[in-house]
């Protein structure tokens, strides 16, 4: 599916830094970020609000460029967004004036397919996320969970090598969230797509990822990389699951004393 040589990492960050300057003031948001992501991996980035998770994801997606260090996608320096790495935005970014089908077809337009091919492919991915009955509905007629599934179908239909997700299930309630996490896992295993996932839900990170990166704030750095060595699908109530959950919780308690929290909240 990809032209990457198997020994190359898909994403490679080397000492990436990001500074924002506003009216003379400049603020270092990310500092010295180094990591590789291998083909087929699902990686979660966990960290408290404002630590730079979204900024990091934007850099990987090419929506913004780092002020220091280097960033490679499939061996090439990232300079602008590309169809090979699709971002799933927090509020889904569906076009409300297009039906589900047309939303997905929009993504296929630059492929130069014939009308039939394009429709066929869109329908295939809509079926994959189980929305074949809602194909002609408008996003506003769907629940939040269904909307997120349309966004996933749209992203998958492009057959990207990487999907970037910024708190993809934050707006959903627990029950929908659990269900969609299962869906995502199933599809990811079927399609073999890489996923980088930003979240602040520890359970979600443990449930979905091969590795969890834990970030510190001011400036944002990756403090710890935890490899979750559990077979998928995982059992949320199993003690092994709890082991990782507790580990990560402790990681956070360890770094945030009550005082610091008081200040940050």
């Amino acid at each position, binding site marked *: 599916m990809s032209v990457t040589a198997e020994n190359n990492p898909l994403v490679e960050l080397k000492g990436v830094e990001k500074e924002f300057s506003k009216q003379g003031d400049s603020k270092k948001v990310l500092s010295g970020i180094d990591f590789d992501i291998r083909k087929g991996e699902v990686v979660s980035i966990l960290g408290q609000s404002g630590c730079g998770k979204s900024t990091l994801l934007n850099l990987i*997606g090419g*929506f913004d460029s780092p002020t220091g260090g280097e960033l490679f996608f499939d061996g090439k320096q990232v300079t*602008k*967004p*590309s*169809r090979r790495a*699709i*971002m799933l*935005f927090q*509020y889904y*970014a569906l*076009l*409300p*004036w297009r039906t589900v089908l047309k939303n997905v077809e*929009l*993504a296929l*337009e*630059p492929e130069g397919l014939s009308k039939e091919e394009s429709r066929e492919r869109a329908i295939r991915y809509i079926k994959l996320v189980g929305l074949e009955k809602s194909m002609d509905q*408008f*996003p*506003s*007629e769907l629940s939040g969970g269904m909307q997120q599934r349309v966004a996933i179908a749209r992203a998958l239909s*492009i057959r990207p090598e990487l999907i970037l997700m910024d708190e993809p299930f934050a707006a959903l309630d627990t029950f929908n969230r659990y269900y969609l996490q299962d869906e995502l896992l199933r599809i990811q295993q079927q399609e073999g797509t890489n996923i980088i996932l930003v979240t602040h839900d520890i359970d979600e990170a443990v449930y979905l990822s091969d590795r969890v990166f834990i970030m510190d704030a001011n400036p944002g750095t990756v403090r710890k990389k935890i490899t979750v060595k559990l077979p998928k699908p995982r059992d949320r109530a199993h003690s092994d699951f709890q082991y990782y959950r507790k580990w990560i919780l402790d990681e956070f308690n360890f770094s945030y004393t009550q005082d610091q929290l008081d200040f940050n909240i």
Partner: protein
Amino acid sequence: MQMKYLSTAFYVTAAFVLVITVWQLVIFIGDYPEALLPSPLMVFYGIITLIQDGTLFEHVRVSLFRFFTGYLSAVVVAIALGLVLGRMTKLWRVFEPIVQVLRPVAPVAWSPFIVLWFGIGNMPAIVIIFIAAFFPVLLSTVSAVKKIDKTYLKLAQNLEIKEMSLLYKIIFPAAFPFIANGLHIAVGTAWIFLVAGEMIGAQSGLGYLIVDSRNALDLDLVLAGIIFIGVLGLLLDKAVGLFEKWVGKQWGVQSN
């Protein structure tokens, strides 16, 4: 539904009775001569006459024609220009001061130049309505384009959608609900200038009816004209309001 119409009818009737009562009271208390403040009855007869001799229909027809010609051409030009200027930030920064200075000038103030370039009759009215509608639509289009949710633009970048597709598949529809709101506002402002527009050499239309009746000191017909302008203005506004709502619904905006 039945109930809703009934209650609306009730309130409208109450409003009508209230207005007529106050009007008559003003005449009784102020003791104004009919020539200076016609009574409701006189105005009613005036309206009947206008309807019977068919001139009212003609005035309405002509005014609506002028209004729609001016308004719709303003809308088309202003939206097209607004989409382009909204994307080209630098160009807009040059045009903005010009637009901002021209906008607060009453269309009537231009009339010497309107006559010079557009003559008399239909054109001045159309041009004045054009001017009155143009600026609100242009400004709301530009600000709508600038206000578009940045994620749509990021999405388009991500999907590698080309500039032309972007403009008419994403920017225009995304901006449209705001533009529709601008259209709604513009309908009101433009209609107000109908009277002014039909003062320059027009020989028919509701504005002309008012001006001409005023010239002939027929204040009852002036009031009849005012009533028709008011009612038609209300209907136009409601029509555009419905259009706006329909757009909102189409676009999945929840209105409550």
